[in-house]
């Protein structure tokens, strides 16, 4: 007993923590979650267990990769600590679900949560500029995804400016790097037209960064329209669901982003024919209209003339009614004395000379007698 080290309780806790810190500054422990709970919306407590043991873990909600549940497999990196009051626990530095089942479960929980918040709402989706001029690209510069994307893009369309944000696309630091890259892309002085986030195929674990809450929210919050393509056709990450548009692969992302120059060139003759047809149709229409106008011009002028002719005719008839010759033809005669028309017997006396106009003769006569009519 005398050889033993002797401590007060506080001293023991302090010396043990020093030893732990020296021996295990950071450990990664993998196990099944049990007794998961969140306190005051801030503190996270759970146990990791396997068949033989259970260890307590402690951290904050900010470290959560998304919602967690008992039974999921989790890998946690942290510092082992003996708390003076609450006993032994591992203080969490980072954590991520492991194993197909847990990753899927975690993703499903997170998906339900973000879905409820409306992050995947189709109404939020904006259309991408087509084709864009300045493209932001968040991926690993070393990756096949990067090479495929740039190759397909170049083959289809030229003259694009690509701003690369080189990030790790898997591993513990990936979510933070990808998130930072998306935020940085949104803050460039010269704005980007579209932001592409992509990586090639891999295991569910490899693709995990793109289903974290952090990255999914960053994609949803991007002011620049986003195109996200993660893994193969069958893989759908939450970042893809939050994106304005999703593509199945990096190559497919390039295909969606820009038209195919060759296909457009092949369509050109048809467009030209359409253009020419349309132009000629305008001319034809104008020609028909002009013909119609000419007819109208003619008709309206003719109508004016016809009306004038009719008016003239009516007046001629009226004039004819007043023609004295017509009266003479009916047997009336004009009687004049001293060059004036005789309208009354009072103008005349026996012996006066008369000039009588008939329809076909001039007669000279002398008045014998004037008898005035009675009454």
């Amino acid at each position, binding site marked *: 007993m005398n050889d033993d080290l002797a401590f007060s309780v506080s001293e023991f806790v302090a010396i043990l923590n020093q030893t732990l810190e020296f021996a295990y500054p950071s450990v990664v422990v993998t196990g099944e979650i049990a007794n998961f709970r969140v306190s005051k919306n801030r503190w996270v407590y759970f146990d990791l267990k396997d068949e033989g043991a259970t260890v307590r873990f402690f951290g904050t909600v900010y470290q959560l990769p998304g919602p967690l549940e008992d039974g999921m497999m989790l890998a946690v990196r942290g510092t082992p600590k003996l708390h003076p009051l609450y006993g032994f626990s591992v203080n969490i530095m980072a954590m991520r679900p492991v194993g197909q089942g847990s990753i899927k479960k975690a993703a499903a929980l997170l998906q339900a949560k973000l879905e409820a918040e409306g992050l995947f709402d189709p109404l939020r989706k904006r259309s991408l500029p087509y084709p864009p001029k300045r493209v932001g690209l968040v991926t690993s510069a070393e990756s096949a995804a990067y090479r495929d994307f740039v190759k397909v893009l170049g083959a289809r369309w030229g003259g694009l400016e690509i701003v690369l944000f080189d990030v790790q696309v898997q591993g513990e630091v990936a979510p933070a790097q990808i998130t930072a890259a998306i935020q940085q892309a949104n803050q460039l002085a010269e704005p980007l037209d579209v932001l592409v986030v992509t990586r090639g195929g891999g295991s569910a674990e490899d693709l995990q960064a793109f289903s974290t809450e952090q990255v999914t929210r960053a994609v949803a919050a991007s002011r620049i329209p986003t195109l996200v393509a993660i893994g193969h056709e069958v893989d759908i990450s939450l970042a893809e669901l939050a994106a304005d548009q999703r593509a199945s692969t990096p190559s497919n992302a390039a295909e969606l982003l820009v038209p195919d120059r060759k296909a457009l060139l092949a369509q050109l003759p048809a467009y*030209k024919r359409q253009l*020419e047809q349309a*132009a*000629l149709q305008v*001319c034809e229409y*104008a*020609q028909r209209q*002009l013909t119609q*106008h*000419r007819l*109208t*011009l*003619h008709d*309206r*002028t003719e*109508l*004016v*003339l016809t009306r*004038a002719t009719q008016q003239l005719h009516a007046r001629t008839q009226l004039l004819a009614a007043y023609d004295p010759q017509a009266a003479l033809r009916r047997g009336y005669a004009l009687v004049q004395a001293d060059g004036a028309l005789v309208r009354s017997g009072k103008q005349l006396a026996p012996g006066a000379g008369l000039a009588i106009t008939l329809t076909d003769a001039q007669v000279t006569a002398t008045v014998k007698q004037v008898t005035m009519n009675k009454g």
Partner: protein
Amino acid sequence: MTKKPEPSYREISDQLDAVLARLQQPDIQVDDAVRLYEEGLALAAALEKHLQLAENTIRKLKAVDSGS
């Protein structure tokens, strides 16, 4: 001295419309009608010329394009 720009198809077409409208007025005089008719025919001829030119230009452009 700036030369007055050539009237457009639209401008001439509007003038022809105006002539047609005046011919429809009830108090139009024969002399005026004849003058308007003459004016209308001249405007129609000008439009015809415009159209011919346009169609020829389209066909010429097409020929140039096909030749390239």
